[in-house]
């Protein structure tokens, strides 16, 4: 969209001719416009510095020796670069196991959501059946129900099933619909695929679900990627649900394990030794890097997700 905007006449291209027509007021206008532009970029730069500074400080502190963390004015790079803040921190709690737990849960949720949200979305995008309108409203209305209202009964349900302290309460529900937001997003995308493809496949003998599997899904990779990325972000950040459902340390997700490590004690040390700020910043950096990297490299999917879902929202 931005390419279209900048290609318009009357923008940057029109200015040189105006500058040489000798008209003083014109010239002053151009001058003030240049000044305005300068001011604009100044404001943008200031905002960027303000917004990025905390992250830069976080990373920089994660490499500093303990005594330098509160140094003022802060130095970007201390005299000593202390890589082992990281190693020390992840030796103090089962870092790799909790990372593996987070990944296991995430993969499970991805699988469940991609399968079941696309199935549900496909039905609403393509099939005609009585009750379709009412059922779609039902899907949308579930977006209005805060997770916390159903949290207690869900917890009791999983408790009765003896599923507490396992990954099942965190994964299994996502196989049943995959969430209204994602159903909506995928449906919007599926509807942009021309029906001619369906018809061609139908002539070749494909049934409704064959069309979904062989035509719609392969053509919807960008939308599926958007769903996968949003899901990764949500699972990586998830805190309350793992906190409630996982009780034993070997089941903890990374976020819960880091919280436990920061709060309770250094493992095996016997006495309570709180981790130092440089160590905490190293683990904060570890938590921050994957989502930020993914955001960097998959921005267009973010934007697409917003464009597909937001405009009609």
């Amino acid at each position, binding site marked *: 969209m931005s390419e279209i905007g900048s290609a318009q006449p009357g923008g940057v291209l029109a200015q040189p001719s105006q500058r040489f027509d000798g008209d003083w007021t014109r010239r002053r206008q151009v001058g003030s416009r240049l000044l305005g532009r300068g001011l604009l970029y100044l404001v943008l730069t200031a905002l960027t510095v303000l917004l990025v500074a905390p992250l830069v400080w976080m990373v920089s502190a994660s490499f500093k020796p303990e005594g330098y963390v509160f140094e003022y004015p802060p130095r970007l790079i201390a005299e000593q670069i202390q890589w082992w803040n990281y190693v020390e921190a992840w030796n103090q709690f089962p870092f790799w196991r909790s990372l593996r737990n987070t990944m296991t849960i995430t993969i499970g949720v991805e699988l469940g959501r991609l399968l079941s949200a696309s199935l549900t979305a496909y039905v609403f995008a393509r099939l005609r059946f009585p009750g379709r309108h009412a059922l779609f409203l039902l899907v949308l209305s579930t977006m209005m129900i805060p997770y916390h209202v*159903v949290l*207690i009964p869900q917890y009791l349900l999983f408790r009765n099933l003896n599923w507490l302290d396992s990954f099942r309460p965190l994964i299994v529900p996502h196989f*049943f619909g995959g969430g209204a937001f994602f159903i909506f997003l995928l449906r919007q995308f599926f509807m942009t695929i021309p029906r001619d493809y369906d018809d061609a496949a139908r002539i070749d003998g494909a049934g409704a679900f064959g069309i979904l599997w062989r035509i719609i899904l392969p053509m919807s990779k960008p939308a599926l990627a958007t769903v996968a990325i949003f899901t990764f972000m949500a699972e990586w950040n998830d805190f309350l649900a793992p906190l409630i459902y996982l009780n034993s340390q070997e089941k903890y997700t990374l976020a819960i394990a880091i919280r436990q490590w920061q709060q309770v004690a250094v493992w095996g040390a016997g006495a309570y030794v709180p981790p130092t700020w440089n160590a905490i910043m190293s683990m904060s950096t570890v938590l921050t890097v994957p989502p930020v990297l993914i955001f960097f490299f998959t921005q267009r999917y973010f934007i697409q997700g917003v464009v597909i879902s937001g405009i009609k929202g």
Partner: protein
Amino acid sequence: MLWRRNLSLQARETRDAYIGLLPFLLGFVIFIAGPLIYSFYLSFTRYEILSPPRWSGLANYTRMFGEDEVLWQSLRVTVIYTLVAVPTQVVVGYAMALLLNLKVKGLSFWRTAFYMPAVVPAMAVAYVFSWMLQSDVGLLNQFLRSIGLPGPKWFGDPNWVLAAFILMSAWAVGGTLLLYLSALQGVPTELYDAAKVDGANAWRRFLNVTLPMTSPIIFFVFLTGMIGTFQVFTVAFVTTNGGPGNASLFYILYLYRTGWEYLQMGYAAAMAWLLFVILLVVTLLSLRLSRSAVFYEGAQE
């Protein structure tokens, strides 16, 4: 396979549709509708998990509206936070998007920089800010002191702790940016051209074209922002855990405590229902108000 051929095309489509919807419908009953009803029932019981729920009539609700000071404190905290954080999100985010919509060079660079804080996990945000906002040695207070201002105690001071939370949410304000930008870029250029022909200056063009054309998105950001701030949990749990003296006891934090620390599931269910009703009322009210304030293109009068 004979029965299959006998079905009419429409009947087959209907059958396929309901087969396809089966997971969603099951999920709706098991994980949403059922729990919603069951938690309504639980809200009229005393249920301490170890023994089965016992009917207690309106006891939870009388406790909620009559005796429980802490609940009102948590509501107050949540509402104050919402009232400051949401307008900040709406207005500052919109202003950022307007700046970036001025045909700036390197749009994707600025967009990335502004949006980035929004993808940082809540835990990391909580740790970074509780480090930067340390009362004596924190970077922000050292900076304030160096220019001669007294730094508040932030997370340690009941009067300032919410300000610290608002600061954290303001930092991630760029999360609304993508939504706003796509709305701004969706405004048809013909409208601006027409306004220019009519002699409207930049300010009038903003008031009469940009603002009304993007008002549905502004409203959307407002509504989702509000629903979000009512459900703050992680940052509060990690930084202050409600303190000092319940000054940052957000509603969900109190709900978590009631249910999973005090094991009062009946009362927690009542709290969950109160939250549900509050959010429902707020949503319906703002939908109603929005009808006069928000411009929907192509909407029938």
